[in-house]
């Protein structure tokens, strides 16, 4: 029998205990993996290549203030800007005010919209139809699936910010790299119905010629309108999205404290198991010593055993989390939140590494005590 075989065999000598420990650790690791994935999605991922090239301009004071529509042509003159399109939040009610019927509605310019959002795909004939119908709307394919919409269906939106109701016809269905839960219509429709909305925009979506130029374009755009009555704030699309995450509260501290609690709980569970299992085997240690095993070797055996159990738990947990994120990303509602997230191999590796470390730490103290015990004393020990 090789040493590794000895370790795995003894790791599962008490099957029920080992399985319970593995289960307990894997549940903790599910959480840890999920939290790390969310952290990564929020703070590390730069988004897709197309998204990294886009900027969002809004009013300096707040998102609820409008910026003048004529800024659009001025923005175009900034070096590095490829295309600009207005995006105005309509905030209408579809059917009723229930949260399951909520989705984002933006008024935009059909002629240039898909030139800024280059990673949104739509068939050419549908795009042409949308551009021809001022009361036309294009919808996210995931949203169309949820509500069972087809091209040609009508959508009625009751205005809350703008005192008007929109009667839109679906002219196209687009697919986005991540679910957007959004529909886009021609803002002219609103401008014609509401006098004060004319020449106003909520935000501008800007496409830069490269991701490297994004900070430069942002600085140039804000400098351009710095001293005007309507100053602006321009940031990368990712930063813009993060400002909504920030509104959920102190998310970083929240995630960190959960991770800490989870890791500590795992450590306790694993330490508990190892303490029980090693104490039971005091006599076995004495036998091993009689056979010529050194202290170091015995220490290694037990630490290896704990790490085996913990790593199995880690693998189970992180793989389960992997599947969970994949499923959640498709779920309605929270799907938007998990949309672009994915458990990457790196995250999996970190989760498994953490579990190995936990196994190692949990076994060190009880194994050290076991390895120190005298042979005669150990042989006399009764359970």
């Amino acid at each position, binding site marked *: 029998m090789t040493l590794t075989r000895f370790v795995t065999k003894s790791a599962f000598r008490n099957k029920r*205990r080992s399985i319970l420990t593995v289960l307990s650790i894997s*549940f*903790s690791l599910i959480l840890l993996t999920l939290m790390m994935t969310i952290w990564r999605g929020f703070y590390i991922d730069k988004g897709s290549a197309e998204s990294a090239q886009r900027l969002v301009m809004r009013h300096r*004071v707040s998102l609820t203030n409008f910026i003048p529509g004529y800024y659009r042509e001025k923005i175009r003159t900034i070096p590095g800007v490829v295309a600009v399109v207005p995006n105005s939040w309509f905030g209408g009610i579809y059917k009723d005010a229930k949260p399951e019927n909520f989705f984002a509605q933006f008024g935009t310019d059909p002629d240039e919209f898909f030139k800024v959002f280059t990673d949104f795909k739509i068939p050419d004939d549908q795009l042409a139809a949308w551009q021809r119908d001022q009361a036309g709307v294009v919808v996210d394919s995931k949203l169309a699936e949820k509500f069972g919409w087809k091209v040609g269906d009508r959508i009625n939106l009751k205005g809350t910010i703008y005192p008007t109701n929109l009667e839109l016809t679906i002219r196209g269905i687009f697919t986005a790299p991540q679910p957007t839960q959004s529909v886009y219509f021609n803002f002219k429709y609103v401008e014609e119905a509401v006098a004060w909305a004319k020449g106003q925009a909520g935000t501008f979506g800007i496409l830069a010629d490269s991701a490297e130029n994004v900070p430069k374009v942002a600085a140039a755009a804000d400098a351009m309108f710095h001293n005007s009555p309507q100053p602006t704030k321009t940031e990368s699309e990712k930063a813009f999205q993060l400002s909504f995450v920030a509104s959920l509260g*102190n998310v970083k501290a929240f995630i960190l404290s959960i991770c800490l609690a989870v890791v500590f*709980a795992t450590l*306790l569970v694993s330490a508990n198991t190892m303490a029980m299992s090693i104490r039971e085997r005091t006599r076995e240690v004495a036998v091993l010593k009689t056979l010529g095993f050194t202290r170091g070797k015995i220490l290694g055996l037990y630490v290896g055993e704990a790490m085996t159990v913990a790593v199995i738990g880690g693998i189970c947990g992180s793989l389960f989390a992997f599947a969970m994120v994949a499923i959640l990303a498709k779920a309605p509602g929270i799907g938007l939140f998990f949309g672009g997230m994915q458990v990457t191999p790196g995250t999996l590796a970190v989760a498994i590494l953490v579990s190995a470390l936990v196994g190692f730490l949990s076994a060190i103290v009880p194994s050290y005590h076991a390895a120190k015990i005298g042979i005669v004393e150990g042989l006399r020990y009764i359970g």
Partner: protein
Amino acid sequence: MAIPIAYNIRNLKLRKGLTIMTALGIALTVTTAVFLMALLAGLDKAFVASGSPLNVLVLRKGSQAELSGGFDGALFPTLRELPGVSKNSKGEPLASGEWVVVIVLPRKDGTGEVNVSVRGMMPAGLELRPNVKLTDGRWFTPGQREVVVGKNIHSRFSGTNVGDVLDFAKGKWTVVGVFDAGGTAYDSELWGDVNQIAADFDRQGGYSSAYLRATDPVAADALKNRVSDDQRLKLEGMLETEYYAKQTSSGKPIQIIGTFVAIIMAIGSCFAAMNTMYAAVAYRGREIATLRVIGFSRPSILTSFVLEALLLSLLGSILGILLMLPFNGLTTGVGNQVTFSEMVFSLQMTPRVILISIAFGLLMGLLGGLAPAWHAARQNILTALRG
């Protein structure tokens, strides 16, 4: 005959290390649950306590919040003179036309910029909110570029002391006072003169909302219906309390994520408790058999072990609550999904939160202890005695 509970307590004491570690594991889970529930309780309290049942909030028809759109200022005199609106000592009706706008302020701790609500109001606006008390400085003077700040704004944002100057919209605003609204949503707002604020945000000639204070609850209800039913006004009235009750939905993301985290952690802790209890049963095989020989029945052995698991989890729950106690009253902010601005509230470990978390801990103990207890009760006496 039942086995005395002292037997279980002594057993838990005998294997101190194991007991403490398992209890700590349960404690961590309970702490997480307490934290999340206290967060939600605090949020609920902030919203529920906001608003007076005597105040009627008037918005444009179809509008869901004070932020979305506004109505013609010419309608305000009609609202002001409606029957049922109470009057102050000078005989003026307690009605205030207001504008709510959102500005961005940098957080004191440097963790980024946050949206904050600014409310412009008429002088009557202060009178119809009698629960709001000035704690420092004075109220703003109508016609001046002055603001008073809520106590949460004062504690969380720099440059909000009396005498400081804030720079937003078209220029500088002097902070002249700090008010305490008793932990309600108003504590997260800045207040100023409605005309000054409307001018700075290019919104003259209208109001986003109007507040009317009724003489009594019945009058408030009548006022609300009267405003909503008048076809010419195209306005909608609602009780201020109803308006805030709707906003508690801002806590939904925390609630969903929190429940999920608590359940996963609880399942993990259940397995750990099960492990400990199985070890306890295995360790005492001969002892259990002896108890059976003496005449204790299977059900009483089962009960005894379940009780022991419950004791263990009770210890864990109490530990968990104690761990969380220092954080009681801690304030934190969350984005209000109706006003798009940050709403500050404090963690509230209410008796209800504590009772639920103890029940939660006990449930973990019960689920973790049942299978091992069953196993203990079903042991064969002879084999156990020999083992």
